[in-house]
């Protein structure tokens, strides 16, 4: 494995771990403290769709670099 690929794999893993942690915390807050629970579902959808697209893009470029 190339040194760049190793560094990139570490960065990629750290980013996903950071992102998953923050998303869990945000979801906890939204569910725990929202005054009108129905309203927060729309927000969760927007956040989820945006994050999903960005994660997919990130993974795609990671694989393009790492895979031969």
């Amino acid at each position, binding site marked *: 494995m190339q040194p*760049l690929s190793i560094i*990139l794999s570490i*960065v990629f893993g750290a*980013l996903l771990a950071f*992102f998953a942690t*923050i*998303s869990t*915390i*945000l979801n906890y*807050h*939204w569910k*725990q*403290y*929202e*005054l009108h629970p129905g309203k927060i579902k729309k*927000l969760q959808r927007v*956040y989820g769709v*945006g*994050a999903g697209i*960005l*994660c997919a*893009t*990130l993974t795609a*470029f*990671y694989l*393009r*670099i790492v895979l031969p």
Partner: protein
Amino acid sequence: MITLHPGETIVFETRRHWLPIAVEGIVLLIFALIPLALLVLPHVFPPEIQAVVARSRDLFFFGVSAWILFLWVVFFIAWTNYYLDIFIITEKRIIDIEQIGLFSRDVAESRLENVEDIRVQITGVVPSLLDFGNLHIQTAGVQREFLVSDIPEPDRVRDIIAKQHDLATQNALRAA
């Protein structure tokens, strides 16, 4: 989560004005667009940077994706802090919830009968034009003063508190 007493209903609730969160969003959007400017306006940047981007395009897009993902998360953290900051007036109490950060939350409440003075403070051109400002509520309780920052239509909120205060005082006198 706020638990209301039996028979208690929310009369009014408000959040901070939208302007501060909009400004934060615009700043983050500008930060997100900076790396994309390398593609659209390459001549603005030094030739060395252009060469690096041209040589490793996949790496560049990987970095851009990570950067935008990071900003996306930062925006939603800011938005959560904004959204969970809420000021509530019920028939019996005023409740001020301040979400300071993801792990910092301050909830203060006072019975309406304990409200003594209400002061509205609107400072600056933009707050005057868009009608938002601070509300200082002096109470007789342990938490002497409530400061509700950047709320829209503070004069209207003051009137609602004053009206609810009168009703609560009348009810307390009737019950005594």
